[in-house]
């Protein structure tokens, strides 16, 4: 392993115990991948907060939990500081930033989460509590190395901004945040990023919901380790459509980069996206394939609806404005809890623009920092039916509920909230 003098110093413990352990892990990770050197990471989103999976360590002592679950260390370490070379901010948390009652959570969990986030903040990790960090200024540029705990952020930053990142994992994002290094491997090397499989679209590609389904379907059909290139006849997507597409694609596959001919910078033409090589496969995405995905995602039949959640991934201000316009003057059925999810910066913009008031008057609210999946099964326990507008949320929540799960666009979900029913 080729290491710089500073990396050797960190590894020798000259920069403190925490950096030493982080470097040991990163070097071991690099050896595991077969990497020969490391690269400097300048942006990280890190999975902070009192997440449910951390309960495996039966302790409320943050440092004990941090040492085992993030640092994989049996020795107790203290999260004192992350690297000053790397701008770190938090990914989503298991709680809203401000409220817990309507999520059916305990005040104890809410306060524990706040205390965990505070420890991250004290170490230099900025509070963002966002799964869409690129909507609030966390945007690594071409050739910049990043780490993130969020699968679709890997796809967004590699594909749209030509930045360099792998899907690593929650522990490795922490290690990188602490020592600002990651193995120079995979997407961190530009020649590894050429497309291998062409997906020719002939399906509908107009709305964000269409692109949610396109991403889900491509992911289903993507061979292991393949890099997709989207080609064919499609309507030009915007960032909202790609947010949906990549979140869904990162659910059904391990994709880390996806070229879109004429849209993403490494794909000005199909030939350049493929690195002038013949594709290993050409796969058609027809409306029939999309309809198959729809059948997988949306339960058949009808049910009462008691839980409606929009914003997976977190909504942009534009999506909130569209939801507010559709909800203006309408009334959500009393038996329905209605959630729109975003980060607290966009929530503040929604407040200032009057959207929060409109949504509250209709009987719903804007929530921050989390989502039903991350908040956990308690928040939707006991409901007969739920309506959700993100394929990622729908796909994963099935493992956490016996309720009927319906999948539709923003407008269908709002209609279901108003009527309290899905289907006839």
């Amino acid at each position: 392993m080729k290491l710089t003098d500073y990396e050797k110093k960190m590894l020798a413990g000259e920069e403190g115990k925490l950096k030493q352990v982080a470097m040991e892990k990163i070097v071991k990770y690099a050896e595991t991948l077969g990497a020969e050197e490391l690269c400097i990471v300048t942006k990280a989103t890190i999975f902070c907060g009192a997440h449910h999976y951390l309960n495996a360590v039966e302790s409320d002592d943050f440092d004990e939990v941090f040492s085992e679950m993030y640092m994989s260390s049996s020795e107790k370490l203290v999260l004192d500081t992350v690297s000053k070379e790397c701008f770190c901010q938090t990914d989503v948390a298991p709680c809203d930033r401000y409220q817990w009652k309507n999520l059916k959570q305990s005040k104890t969990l809410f306060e524990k989460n706040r205390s965990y986030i505070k420890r991250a903040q004290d170490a230099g990790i900025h509070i963002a509590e966002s799964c869409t960090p690129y909507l609030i200024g966390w945007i690594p540029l071409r050739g910049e190395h990043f780490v993130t705990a969020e699968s679709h952020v890997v796809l967004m930053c590699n594909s749209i901004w030509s930045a360099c990142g792998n899907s690593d994992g929650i522990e490795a994002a922490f290690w990188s945040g602490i020592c600002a290094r990651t193995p120079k491997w995979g997407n961190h090397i530009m020649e590894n990023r050429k497309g291998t499989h062409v997906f020719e679209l002939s399906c509908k590609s107009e709305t964000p919901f269409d692109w949610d389904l396109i991403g889900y379907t491509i992911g289903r059909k993507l061979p292991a380790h393949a890099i997709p290139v989207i080609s064919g006849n499609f309507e030009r997507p915007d960032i909202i459509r790609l947010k949906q597409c990549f979140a869904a694609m990162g659910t059904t596959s391990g994709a880390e980069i996806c070229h879109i001919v004429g849209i993403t910078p490494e794909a000005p033409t199909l030939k350049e996206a493929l690195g002038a090589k013949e594709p290993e496969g050409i796969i058609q995405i027809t409306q029939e394939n999309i309809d198959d995905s729809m059948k997988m995602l949306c339960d058949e039949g009808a049910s009462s609806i008691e839980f409606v959640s929009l914003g997976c991934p977190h909504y942009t201000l534009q999506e909130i404005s569209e939801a507010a316009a559709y909800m203006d003057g309408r009334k959500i059925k009393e038996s329905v809890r209605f959630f729109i999810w975003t980060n607290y910066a966009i929530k503040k913009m929604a407040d200032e623009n009057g959207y929060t008031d409109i949504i509250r008057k209709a009987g719903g609210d804007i929530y921050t920092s989390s989502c039903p999946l991350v908040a956990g099964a308690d928040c939707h326990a006991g409901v007969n039916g739920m309506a959700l507008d993100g394929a990622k949320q729908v796909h994963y929540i099935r493992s956490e509920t016996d309720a009927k799960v319906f999948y539709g666009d923003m407008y269908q979900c709002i209609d279901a909230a108003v009527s309290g029913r899905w289907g006839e």
Partner: protein
Amino acid sequence: MDKKTTLLKGRPVIKGIAEGEALVCPESIQGWAGIDDETGVIIEKGHSQEGVSIKDRILVLPCSKGSNGWSSHFHSAKVKGITPAGWLFSKMDSRTGVAAVVIDIPAVADFEDTDPVEAIKTGDWVKVDANRGIVEVLHK
């Protein structure tokens, strides 16, 4: 009657020796809601091995998929004392790389010639020499 054996060669990733009954997942296991944090049972809806525990098995996967939290759910199960005996990855990727480091059980990846997902069937007995990257498959 002699049972048929197959030898596979890959890159040693996490050193050690392990053996156990193969659990082959051609569709991998998804990162979120893939395995139960406490029991190591596969909870991914519609998975070919839904309801089966990873405990003490030789887990054979082509790749990772889904959430970047892939390693962390194996990690929770490990804290509860539940891990595979060893694992084989047809080809290494970033999520499986982190998981290999965190779970720290014998691991072999980047197989030459033969893909373990195709050569090994669930229920075969598999001996993993992750010091040398040699995998011996005793077919059932």
